[in-house]
């Protein structure tokens, strides 16, 4: 009998599969928004592991997303035509493999960025990750092999409801599982008091790097999903604003809360779409909403005793 958390994961995957099978009946616009929401969940939950639960502050999530997006898109566009094969085979074998590779490369980038900067205490990580995000963007803009500033076109549309919500379910499971053990409580301890955590025998640097690498991995997977949803990649899409958007989801949901952050990811995804009809005023309304929310509920939108942490 597998543990209950794994049964939940299987149930979520099955549900995603069933809903996906009937997605043909959905309005294509609604479908598009729904898939965007799924990707949002992957991004927000993975960043929550770094910024919320482990108490570090990364401002480069979009950069890791870009690494994953370009890696997986390059793989499917170049290999896809060479391999030939049936479209179904490509979608069910090549695509997940490309997502995995995108995630792994993003994780590797996370290790390269995190290993030196996470040894330091304080805000260094925010500055280093901010720089990393910009570097990735500029590099992508100048490498012709990936389309340069014009962007990468013709990415096959493999992303569907199953893959987005499947990935979201796996992300939630992974972050939850990582935290819900005696080992995992160490992440929260590092966030609370690093000096005390060291004194209790926790290798705080290792914990911080682990959180950062796992978070970057899922950012990379989200990037791959995004690439095969839009069919087109533009380096400008992975700029500082995108990173901030993900940070906002985590803050609104309540740093270090599981359910709140998922709700925030859904809400902000839907909100930015509904506000589209306001045209140029969209970003003004969006910012105003954020300011009001931050003033009235700085601890996060979705915190009430219902979700008080328990030691289960």
């Amino acid at each position, binding site marked *: 009998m*597998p*543990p209950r*958390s*794994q049964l939940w994961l299987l149930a979520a995957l099955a549900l995603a599969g069933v809903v996906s099978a009937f997605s043909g009946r959905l309005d294509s616009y609604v479908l598009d928004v729904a898939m965007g929401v799924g990707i949002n969940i992957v991004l927000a939950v993975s960043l929550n592991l770094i910024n919320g639960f482990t108490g570090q502050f990364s401002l480069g999530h979009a950069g890791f997303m870009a690494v994953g997006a370009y890696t997986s898109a390059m793989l499917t566009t170049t290999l896809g035509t060479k391999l030939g094969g049936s479209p179904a085979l490509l979608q069910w074998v090549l695509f997940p493999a490309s997502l995995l590779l995108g995630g792994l490369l993003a994780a590797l980038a996370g290790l390269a960025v995190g290993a030196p900067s996470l040894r330091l205490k304080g805000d260094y990580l925010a500055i280093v990750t901010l720089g990393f995000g910009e570097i990735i963007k500029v590099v992508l803009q100048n490498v012709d092999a990936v389309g340069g500033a014009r962007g990468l076109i013709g990415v096959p549309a493999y992303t569907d409801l199953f893959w987005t919500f499947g990935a979201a379910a796996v992300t939630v499971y*992974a972050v939850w*599982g*990582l*935290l*819900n*053990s*005696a*080992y*995992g*409580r*160490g992440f*929260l*301890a590092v*966030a*609370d*008091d690093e*000096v*005390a*955590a*060291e*004194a*209790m*025998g*926790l*290798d*705080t640097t290792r914990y911080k790097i*682990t959180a950062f690498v*796992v978070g970057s991995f899922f950012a990379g997977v989200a990037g791959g999903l995004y690439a095969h949803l839009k069919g087109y990649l533009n380096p400008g899409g992975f700029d500082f604003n995108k990173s901030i958007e993900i940070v906002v989801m985590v803050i609104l949901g309540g740093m270090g809360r599981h359910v709140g952050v998922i709700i925030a990811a859904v809400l902000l995804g839907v909100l930015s779409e509904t506000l589209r009809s306001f045209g140029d005023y969209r970003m003004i309304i969006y910012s105003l909403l954020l300011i009001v929310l931050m003033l009235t509920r700085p601890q996060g939108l979705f915190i009430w005793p219902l979700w008080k*942490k*328990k*030691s289960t």
Partner: protein
Amino acid sequence: MPPLLQLDRVTIRFGGLTAVSEVSATVDERELVGLIGPNGAGKTTLFNMVTGVYQPTAGSIAFDGLPTEGLRPFDLTARGIARTFQNIRLFPSLTVFDNVRVAFHLHLRHDATHSLTRGRKFQTEETELRERTRDLLGIFGLERVQDEPAKSLPYGDQRRLEIVRALATRPKLLLLDEPAAGMNPAEKVELMKLIQFIQEKFKLAILLVEHDMKVVMGICQRIHVLEYGRKIAEGTPAEIRADPAVIAAYLGQEHG
């Protein structure tokens, strides 16, 4: 048998300031040793060198027969040194239960991958650990508040929880940094009983930094006295009480 902790002419300088100078001292296994001295004598600095927070500028420290040079605090905790802090440092947002559970982790085999696969061995280990955490909390009467966040506990309970958390790492040597600070006389009597109880029950050595003479004189078997970073005396409580250098340090020198 060599002493459990051995300081050999330990010195540390911060710029031009010599905070601790050529201090030699020992703590034997299962011994309760006091470390006293006026404010600024270098007691906490010495603590921080023993626990790996600072590296000595000169001299050496050996624990359990092995030098501790270059080891970080978590390495030393793994080798059997646990501590509490002068200003309580719990994990405030974690529950009382999780504060202790985290400290237990040191002796587990599982890590990130096992938390994800959650196999049978992981689950038995986790259950066992939960039981051990509950038992330990029970010994100190903290099981009733185990689901409360640590920051919501009253001051005395926070002090107690910090000691319990240190014990969960299964130390051979427990360093207590001014555990009586901020306590009233009745609480201090309780604390003295608690420290003696811990030493007997868990069979460990305790090094106690304390300002309160009653506490130190009441329970310590041996006392080291520091003044201006130097060791000025060592002995039993009775010897320390009669030592002219100690009296001078605490009450001032008599002139003429």
